[in-house]
């Protein structure tokens, strides 16, 4: 039987033993480590983990050190999902053959990858894993940029953001394309569970991770991960930024069950204007020039429309 952790409050959470060590090389204020701890803390079961190449990987497994007190593998940039899918296949094979060393365990197979490794270069691998029905969970640490290589745009980078390959300049407002809706794409595979989470709403996150670990089949989780370096905010403000992202509804928190049944899981009491979210980050600084202010208005309209869409989906129960 699966063993899910019961954590009552934040104090208990912060002192709970975990299998991801604080000794790592991630930037001060990076949300990745907070998300990873919250995911791993959702279960007492054994773990088989992977990380695709990216910030998390290069900061937690530099020989001869490791930050992982659990089985962990990194192969390359694009194939972290398939790495745990292969391990899951081996688990099934050895289970059927009666060759597991610890047959009473109930391991969870989780791959972590950035948005570059998920939305772009690893897209096909993740799609394959979702379609084939592996009993794995793929968690995107979505900081909307190739942070590990220094801030290039990915297909998760939102419109108007200044990235190093789509920089704002005298005649450009930066990224021209809208962010790809990865949760919808993954849900369209008909997988049992997909969700968007944020580290500030840790109870919501833990609940979703536990739901995902309990279902039989592939699970896709998109976690907003504010990046102090590339979003350009003070490292002490990570949680404030995360609050702004969820409360402005730029990152609405919801889940999709069996590929179609959508539930909104967090409704901010006071919805914050998108402008406040944008104003808190250096990557959107140029949008506040007179000639680009129309983009802020468009941002708000887009977020409102998406929120209305999610509400209609939830009401429709289809």
């Amino acid at each position, binding site marked *: 039987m699966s063993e899910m952790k019961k954590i009552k409050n934040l104090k208990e959470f912060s002192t709970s033993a975990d299998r991801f060590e604080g000794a790592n090389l991630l930037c001060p204020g990076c949300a990745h480590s907070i998300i990873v701890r919250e995911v791993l803390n959702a279960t007492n079961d054994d773990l088989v983990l992977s990380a695709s190449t990216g910030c998390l990987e290069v900061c937690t497994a530099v020989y001869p050190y490791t930050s992982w007190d659990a089985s962990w593998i990194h192969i390359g940039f694009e194939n972290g999902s398939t790495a745990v899918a292969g391990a899951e296949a*081996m688990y099934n094979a050895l289970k059927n053959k009666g060759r597991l060393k610890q047959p009473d365990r109930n391991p969870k197979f989780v791959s972590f990858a950035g948005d570059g490794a998920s939305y772009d270069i690893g897209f096909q691998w993740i799609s394959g894993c979702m379609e084939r029905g592996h009993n794995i969970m793929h968690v995107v640490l979505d900081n909307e940029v190739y942070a590990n290589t220094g801030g290039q745009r990915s297909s998760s980078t939102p419109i108007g953001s200044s990235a190093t390959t789509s920089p704002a300049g005298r005649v450009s407002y930066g990224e021209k394309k809208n962010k790809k809706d990865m949760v919808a794409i993954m849900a369209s595979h008909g997988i049992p569970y997909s969700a968007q989470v944020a580290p500030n709403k840790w109870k919501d996150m833990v609940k979703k991770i536990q739901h995902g670990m309990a279902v039989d089949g592939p699970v896709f989780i998109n976690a907003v991960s504010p990046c102090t370096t590339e979003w350009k905010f003070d490292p002490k403000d990570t949680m404030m930024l995360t609050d702004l992202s969820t409360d402005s509804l730029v990152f609405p928190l919801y889940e999709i069950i069996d590929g179609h049944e959508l539930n909104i899981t967090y409704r901010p009491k006071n919805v914050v204007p998108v402008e406040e979210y944008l104003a808190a980050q250096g990557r959107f600084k140029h949008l506040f020039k007179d000639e680009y202010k129309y983009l802020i208005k468009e941002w708000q309209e887009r977020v409102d429309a998406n929120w209305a869409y999610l509400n209609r989906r939830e009401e429709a129960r289809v």
Partner: protein
Amino acid sequence: MAFDKMELRDIEVWDGNFAAAQALRQCQIDVVAAYPITPSTPIVEGYAKFLADNYVEGEFVMVESEHAAMSGCIGAAAAGGRVATATSSQGFALMVETLYQASGMRLPIVLNVVNRALAAPLNVNGDHSDMYLGRDSGWIQFDSYCPQDAYDLNFIAFRVAEDHDVRLPCMVHQDGFMTSHTAQGVHTMDDDTAYSFVGDFKPMNDMLDFEHPVTHGVQTEEDWHFEHKARQHNDLMTKVMPKIQAAFDDFKTLTGREYNIVERYDMDDADVCVVCMGTSVETAREVALEMRAKGIKAGVVGIRVVRPFPFFEIQEALKDVKAIAALDRSAPGGAPGMLFNEIAGCLFNTDTKALLSGYIYGLGGRDLTKKHLVDLFTELQANVDAGKVLTPLQQFIGVRGPKLQFL
């Protein structure tokens, strides 16, 4: 064990693909992650069918690309079990990134490579371009000349790869279509005998041992990367050949079939010889005998282990011969062929005065005919008689148009 044994005749009529598939069944592979490509597809189709008919117990993961196939194999092997797959050509090329990762992570995967040309132009037929593409990847590479070899060498490959002193992945090569789709008599082992040769898989650093968590695939920069690569090379250079020889010896004891790191045919008193791989070895052997009837003392050297390259075995095999032709079945891309270069490297600084010339042949499935080899041996004898190489060092044979030769 829940699966059924299969009754085999002592000699079955199998093509190379089916021979390899039968070997995978008898080795009881735990996980095959695979993607179809001509001409290797029937190997993994065979495994899938054996699974469907309960002749093997394991997991077949039909993934969405060859890159994912090897990625899944790496995850499965790191989890701790026996893993194999098969590919060819473009699929092999797509896998290349993960080939280096598999060997660097010291995972004992067996990859059957049914050799095929690399595009462009697109071509499904056999040459050794894919084999050559893998030669710096840190894998052990075995070469088959016929379906019997494709069957036998799979057992050898698992034995060597999974040895805890080796822990390196192995490729078993066979020629696309000429071996893979040509049915011949194959001497078989019964299921129990075959399995006993490879034995139970003995996991090491397995991710599914939760009492001993391991971190696979770390990062090393200028401080440690070189040491890791050096150690891998050291093991390839010093540990692998003795293990291969021991496996060949044990296999001969078990089956009576003899394999050698370098195969020598009519080499004891040979004046001239060709060094080649794949199905060309058998053609060359036949022509060498015919040349002997004409008074030319011809011999053939077949490369059985491509990587690690059999440096000393080649020196030994070629020490008394007077003229050597290195036959390379891969477009050399602006250089002498691989075999030419490796053989030249082996013989340099030795006392041999042998004359070495190189031939590029058979690209994209072009036949190497007996006539080609008769002309070639005749050319080698002329070199011996003249005491020097009379031709350019690199000649293309069997290609249309004016004679193509370089160097």
